[in-house]
């Protein structure tokens, strides 16, 4: 059953390359069937595209809206939201 689920999160980690969270996020997002998007203010990025994510320019502390549309939307949101909120270990 297709669902559309949205959640607003505060970014705990910088979405950057050396720090790897962007790559991890994309790799995880690509594992879900659902369409995944991440929005900051009025810009929306495709969660499965690393370039899209990087150009969103989301920084630590920013509020972003994560959206998933598809059969596994709930699982996707739960997993990806916690990745975004995670602080550097």
């Amino acid at each position: 059953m297709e669902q559309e689920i949205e959640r607003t999160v505060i970014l705990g980690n910088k979405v950057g390359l050396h720090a790897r969270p962007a790559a991890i996020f994309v790799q995880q997002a690509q594992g879900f069937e659902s369409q995944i998007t991440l929005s900051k203010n009025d810009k929306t990025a495709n969660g499965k595209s690393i370039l899209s994510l990087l150009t969103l320019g989301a920084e630590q502390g920013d509020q972003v809206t994560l959206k998933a549309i598809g059969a596994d939307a709930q699982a996707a949101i739960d997993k990806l939201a916690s990745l975004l909120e995670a602080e550097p270990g």
Partner: protein
Amino acid sequence: MTITTIRGIAASPGIAAGPIFRYEVGKVTAERHHVADVQHEIAYLDAALQQAKAEIHTLFLQTQKDIGSNEAAVFEAHELFLDDPELLQQVHTTIQMQSVNAAYAWQQATAQYSAQLRALSDEYLAARAADMEDVAQRVLRILQGIDTPISKLVEPAVIVATELTPSEATHFPKEKVLAFCTATGSATSHVAILAKALGIPAITGLGNEVHQLRNGMQVVVDGTTGEVLLEPDAQTLTAYQQRSEMLMQIQQDALQLAQEPAMTRDGMHVRIVANIAGPEQAVEALTCGAEGVGLLRTEFLFLEREAAPDEDEQVAVYRSVLETMEARPVVVRTFDIGGDKPAPYLDMPAEMNPFLGVRGIRLALAKPDIFQTQLRALLRAGVGHTLKLMFPMVASSEEIRAIREHLQQAAATLATRDLSYTEQIEVGIMIELPAAALMADMLVELVDFFSIGTNDLAQYTLAADRTNPAVVELADALHPAVLRLIRMVIEAAHAHGKWVGLCGELAGDPLAIPVLLGLGLDEFSITPRSVPLVKQVLRSYSMHDAREIARQALALENADEVRTYLLSAKR
């Protein structure tokens, strides 16, 4: 005689002297052509992308082997660029809608993304535009059939370039590079990171001045001050060479003394071991003079992957560390993960308070299969070595009993599979929770040793999140509350003839060392690079003095008073 000096950003410390090797690579551009067979063009692009991916993967493996996983990670991101669905869709659409050549379509799309990245206000992300361009150029070269210029580097030289992409910097044979100097870049550029990993000087951000650095010119590069001296006279050159030799000598001396055991002034030997997170660091630990491993973190095996590592994979990694350390003791901590760490296959529900949630031993006991696999792998790998196990975040005796049952079960399984495993193994727990410290006198009867994790102990005792800038200063391990708990733990252990190690940052803090020594700590476990320094500090105290310092420190009221006192008592 004044020597021309130019200045840039000090990106990696050290001094080098030698001839310049100017490295310039022309940027490849593509011209727009009309193509009739659009499908062929798309297939051609896809083939080029596959080749680019293969090249980058080779670079990734090479860098991982030569430098390390962190530096190699940038190439993994490059591979992700090549898989990016938005980028690919844009290029395919351009080829199809405009009937143009793949090279042109690719150039347009990647240029757009570079520009978008550069326009970002975050400096770090904007610098990633250089990564995008590196990947874009690689694919363009393949599409246009242009080879990268072969490096004509014959003798060791100072590499000078306007810009060096990660691929380019990595391509130079390490033995031939004395230093890196670039016109662009910052203290965090890839060149800086690479140079630091190689232990050579680097200067970035030289700007237009870089034009004064001509091929073959003799220079001195001082990566500590960010200066390049052009064609220094013999006297200056000698002076710099002497400085360079002196720096190397100081480092060598420290390392040599580091190989000696640390004895206090009144002749007591204190065991200094290392905190490591992987096999490469085991080698570094020995070079720095560690007498063993006081903490082998195993999270690296479990994080950032699709599924838990299997038994054989783990055995290989543990054996690698144990073999490097030979007969020296190696304490391995079983996986210490919580909901805040990326291990999606563990399928843990999100928690409001991951630090107070299911983590450490709680998680291990909740995932018995994964726990059993790790235990079996450890028991197998430990044969013929001095392996000790320790368990994180233990609060109570039931947990220790559950651990013992798990160990028995793991051994029994191995016995039925007719595999050899080590039966004699010391079992200890991390003391990170106040509850464990307060119950140490009872818990000690169930284990062979304690290892105090002061980072978390301070955090939990003072209720201050060390990742929260507003309260991080409150989580001070030198607070008397924490010191009292440390004393309690050591006294309880010694009353039962058992030993105590400490693997938190406190063990490497020169201020704290006499206190810990005076309280009777048996083992200091620190990051490899700190081993020489900690040994030196220990050598400057006698047990008698250390006991007095500890006694006075523990009579104080708060962290500030303790620090002030310790600063005055410092040698």
